């Protein structure tokens, strides 16, 4: 379980201190898909980086299974907003990066790589460098790379924001399929309301900076979810309801 308890974050700039996250509390049960929607620049990335342990909260606590987060760890994987595949490694070695940090056996390494190549449909691209992949493929490799380390919690920072709308909805379907199989806890950040609803069990709406949770919506749509869901009336109504909440 992931728990954020009254988390605040200030950035110190020159002579003043800017509060970016304000008293934010949040609980994500194991295996749940949580989406956070918030306006641009409100502090979404900051929030995920704190959960990942890359930066420290100014006050408040973050607990994973009742243990205080004090730094990065492979129990929490993060998919970044900008593509962060290591350009000097082939697809195969990018996926294996986390495994290579742990020194596992050659056989297990190969098994894990093969598994995620199959899951992502990238078998034919195993010897490609990132520069020769499309944006969607790069994000798939990034997801595979993180999943290969078998984190309990997956932190995703607008992973599809820079993809075209067609690739984007393909990737959303890919992710729901994957999640329905792997059942990880996911914290998914986006500013796209319909993306949040399509993917998540729970959608938290964030306020603008300093950000905190403004309202929470449970998403009732059954799984497995298919793309057609987006054309249904209930989906549309919920989307405009949450979008309205986001605007104020």
């Amino acid at each position, binding site marked *: 379980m992931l728990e954020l308890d009254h988390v605040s974050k200030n950035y110190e700039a020159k002579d003043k201190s800017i509060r970016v996250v304000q008293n934010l509390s949040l609980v994500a049960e194991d295996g749940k898909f949580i989406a956070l929607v918030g306006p641009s620049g409100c502090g979404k990335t900051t929030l995920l980086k704190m959960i990942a342990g890359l930066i420290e909260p100014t006050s408040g606590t973050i607990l994973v299974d009742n243990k205080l987060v004090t730094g990065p760890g492979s129990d929490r994987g993060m998919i970044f907003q900008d593509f962060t595949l*290591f350009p000097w490694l082939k697809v195969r070695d990018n996926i294996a990066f986390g495994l290579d940090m742990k020194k596992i056996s050659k056989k297990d390494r190969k098994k894990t790589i093969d598994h995620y190549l199959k899951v992502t449909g990238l078998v034919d691209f195993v010897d490609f460098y990132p520069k020769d992949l499309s944006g969607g493929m790069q994000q798939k490799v990034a997801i595979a790379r993180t999943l290969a380390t078998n984190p309990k919690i997956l932190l995703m920072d607008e992973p599809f924001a820079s993809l075209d709308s067609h690739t984007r909805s393909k990737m959303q379907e890919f992710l729901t399929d994957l999640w329905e199989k792997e059942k990880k806890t996911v914290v998914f950040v986006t500013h796209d309301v319909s993306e949040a609803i399509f993917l998540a069990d729970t959608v938290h709406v964030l306020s603008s900076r300093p950000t905190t949770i403004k309202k929470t919506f449970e998403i009732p749509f059954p799984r497995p979810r298919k793309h057609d869901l987006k054309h249904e009336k209930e989906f549309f109504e919920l989307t405009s309801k949450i979008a309205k909440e986001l605007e104020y």
Partner: protein
Amino acid sequence: MNPVNAIFRFERKLSGRAYGLLTVAGAVSMLTVWSVASYSGKIDSLFLPTPAAVVASAATLALEFNLLGDIWASVYRIALGFGLSVIIAVPLGVWIGIHKQTEAFLTPLTSFFRYTPVSAYIPLFILWFGIGELEKISVIFLAIVPYLIVLVADTVANTKKEYAYAALTLGAQTKHIFFSIVLPQSMPGIWDSMRITIGFGWAFVILAEVVAATSGLGHLIVISQRFLKISNVMAAIVVIGLLGLATDMLFKLGYRYFFPWTDKSRHA
């Protein structure tokens, strides 16, 4: 083509054949200008010999004199001076790039020697080391090291932090970051810095040899000038140019071989 690519020519794609053809065309244009200027008789052949005369001189120098020995002497000095520079400057540059305190400590040193002209040290080096190999190598070393340090340090300091963040979330320890993130990301930049600074090697070995030497292409140039053998001077210059071209080509090939993952390695 997308407009950004059109403006900045990001899409720098060219077939190997077209690249080769253009390279040849560039060389031919240069030769043409030289030929027109020299064969037309507009410029006295004492000042500007024809290409044929220069080739003939080069042949004579190679066959009857010691052109190959002079080439070897210069190449040897550069190899030694450059090799030594790389051994010293690359680790120092890397260290400065990752360590602010080292940067602060060494900045006076690197800046001082970057801005004081190397030629000013030649008399000093001759006094200290005589006119042998040590003096030549010191000149090359002093020309290259301060620049190479700064170029390497810049490359290393500019590594993207995001990759380190990503690595940390994948289970990397802080101690892994240097070897698995910073270094591989910096290698192409370090390689290019070497390519740029080995050019200084050529410039300064000739200078050192012109000032005082008994062998080398620079020596050949002063001797020829003393006897007004302008076509010999030109032959030496052409040889230096061709050797420089070859050096650059080797570095480019090396870049493509070692760093196939960079955008730049897509084309020659």
